[in-house]
């Protein structure tokens, strides 16, 4: 029972929110919050093992298992890396996109999911423009569902591949992670936080390893409410001040498709928040520069920085394949490997 806070009266007992029934399937990865730090360690370790494994042996791990990619939004990196990851483990993959399927004819997510299951899909990788869609799909199919980005909500594999990239630079050789692994590390996430699933997953995951997450951006794109997302999060509106403290600078794209009528002066935005070579050299000459992509050169980041020596943007992409191999493997083998929930 939670306590009501009515000031003038004695505290009243009120009904508590019911406990979550998710995930239904131990192989699902819906949110970074579903993963214990032990589970994160296992995924990181498996990513390394799989990445280094002989492709002809790796090919047998999920030989002929069926994995469906269900994509309601355009994607280059996430889709291709999930597909390559599943295929690298020997799985058969099929891609269903909203533009070339019965989704265009009005088929619901539930029916699409049930259809894929009937076709033999053993796991579904879902990218969807509505926040929460993976939870619906999992509840309807009870299959392992991998969240490949849902609306403005989460993108858990992106946070895991970002973590792998950060560790490679700041904690080389780290085999497992715990709540102190990133102690003393400040990660600044700058830009369109409000509409960013990448930001949400990272701000929920990195502080659990001890990192300070600094959010930076204008009020329209970064409401004060963001502080409530969890512990270890602070807001710094001054980009240069944030940069000065950072070991990792993660830049985000302005998501024009989600602005919903919000007017933004891009020249002002660039003046305040663009990551330029000059700013980087002056304020954070050692920092690792991350960006989940797609990058808009000349807007949130200059071409020089994106292509520069501090940029780990293409490393992130490579890490995406390794992480997604581990996550796809976990989806289909989790029940055996971990004996239940992660």
């Amino acid at each position, binding site marked *: 029972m939670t306590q009501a806070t009515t000031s003038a009266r004695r505290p009243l007992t009120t009904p508590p929110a019911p406990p979550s029934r998710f995930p239904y399937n131990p192989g699902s990865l819906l949110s970074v919050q579903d993963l214990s730090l032990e589970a994160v360690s296992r995924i990181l370790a498996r990513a390394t093992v799989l990445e280094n494994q002989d492709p002809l042996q790796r090919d047998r791990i999920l030989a002929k298992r069926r994995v469906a990619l269900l994509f309601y939004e355009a994607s280059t990196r996430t889709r291709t890396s999930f597909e390559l990851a599943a295929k690298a483990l020997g799985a058969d993959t099929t891609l269903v996109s909203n533009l070339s399927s019965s989704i265009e004819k009005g088929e619901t997510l539930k029916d699409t999911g049930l259809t894929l299951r009937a076709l033999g899909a053993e796991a579904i990788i879902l990218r969807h423009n509505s*926040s929460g869609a993976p939870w619906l799909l999992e509840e309807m199919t009870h299959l392992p569902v991998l969240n490949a980005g849902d609306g403005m909500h989460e993108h858990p594999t992106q946070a895991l591949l970002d973590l792998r990239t950060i560790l490679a630079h700041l904690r080389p050789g780290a085999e497992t992670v715990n709540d102190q692994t990133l102690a003393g590390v400040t990660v600044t996430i700058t830009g369109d936080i409000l509409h960013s699933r990448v930001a949400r997953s990272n701000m929920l995951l990195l502080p659990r390893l001890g990192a300070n997450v600094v959010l930076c951006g204008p009020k329209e794109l970064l409401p004060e409410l963001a502080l409530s997302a969890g512990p270890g999060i602070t807001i710094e509106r001054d980009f240069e001040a944030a940069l000065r403290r950072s070991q990792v600078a993660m830049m985000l794209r302005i998501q024009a498709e989600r602005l919903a009528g919000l007017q933004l002066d891009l020249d002002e935005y660039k003046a305040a928040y663009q990551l330029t070579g000059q700013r980087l050299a002056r304020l954070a000459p050692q920092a690792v520069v991350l960006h989940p992509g797609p990058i808009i050169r000349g807007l949130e980041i200059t071409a020089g920085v994106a292509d520069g020596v501090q940029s780990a943007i293409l490393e992130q992409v490579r890490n995406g394949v390794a992480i997604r191999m581990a996550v796809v493997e976990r989806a289909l083998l989790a029940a055996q490997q971990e004996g239940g929930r992660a």
Partner: protein
Amino acid sequence: MTALAIRGGRLVDPSAGIDAPKDILLKDGRVAEVAAPGKLKSAEGAESLDATGLVVAPGLIDIHVHLREPGQGHKETIATGTASAAMGGFTAVAAMPNTTPVNDSPEITRWMQAPERGAQVRVFPIGAATRGSKGETINDFAALKAAGAVAVTDDGKPILKDGMMREVLAAAARVGLSVIQHAEDTRMTQGASMNLGQASFRLGLRGMPPEAESSLVERDIRLVAELRDARAHLHVAHTSTAAAVAAVRQARRNGLRVTCEVAPHHFLLTEDHVGLYNTHAKMNPPLRSAADRDAMIEGILDGVVDAIATDHAPHAAHEKEVEFEHAPNGITGLETALGLCLRWLHHEWKMPLGRVLSLLSAQPAALLGLRGRGTLTVGSFADVVVFDPEKEWSYRVANTRSKSKNTPFDGWTMQGKVRWTICEGRIVYTETV
């Protein structure tokens, strides 16, 4: 018509200030006699119900339901919605006009009340304030009232234009109708599917700010103040924010005719009950913060809230089994209102039983001017609910009489189980499960 004597019960009739063991005789659809136990004088030949250990109270009145007819019979019909009402102890419901087509005419208003609809309890239509609820052309309120409408509203499509709302308030006052406003400045809620707050940020959903409700309530109250001499009556539907309750409280202090209702989900649940995108916790107004929820409790306990109304809003299962932001707003409520009110308002928060029942009968009847309802004084309609006040039970939506099952209260513990519901002298519900 046969006569019905209800004997041995505890009569709780807040309209008459009665809470005592009484027998009551219903005859020809009216209350014929109320007497001390065993002292009914004219009960000879009457059928008898044994209400020993039970509370006998005025039939409940819900002034905010969506019966979905005409036009949306796959969600609910007047027959199924009123059967659900009877199961919940309600003997009268006021039906919102957001049907297909919108109830903006005397013809539809009469159609809804026709015997062919198979209503189990009394249906009072609420007419649309403007043609098609488009907010452009005001309806003929005198004609709607003559056809049986008890209030006007553009529920769900709030009247945003000051001039139109002023005109509606004035025209309704001239014919003695109340204006019900779903207070939501829709310019502030575009694309939003839950309360704007910590939960909406966490879930990545666009949020409705509390100000979208309170600013429109404040605007409407200003208009009522301007029309003070016309005695305009504003009723604020499903109040959900602390600021809106505060505005109503202040308006009443200023002597204005402003009333408000609160739905059980708004005094029990918060935005946290949305959990991981539970569409059975999606409604409009949305579940708010704990502070807002607490303000609803406060408003009910201190008397500024005039009625509990369910906003019973049935939707077919397939309509709710979609992405959260695409799911329609609303939950069913007729079968859970009494059990939740008794469990929480009365049992947990110690509100006297008579006051709880008043919020569910006498006050809503007075608010909409439903004469002879919400009371068991001799001569009034024989609308009665008989329930076991002590019985704890678990609500099972599988047993619902509604066509739809979209409730967040499935499996919840209720207190007080309806044994019989009697509408105008007819037993319309008898406890079976």
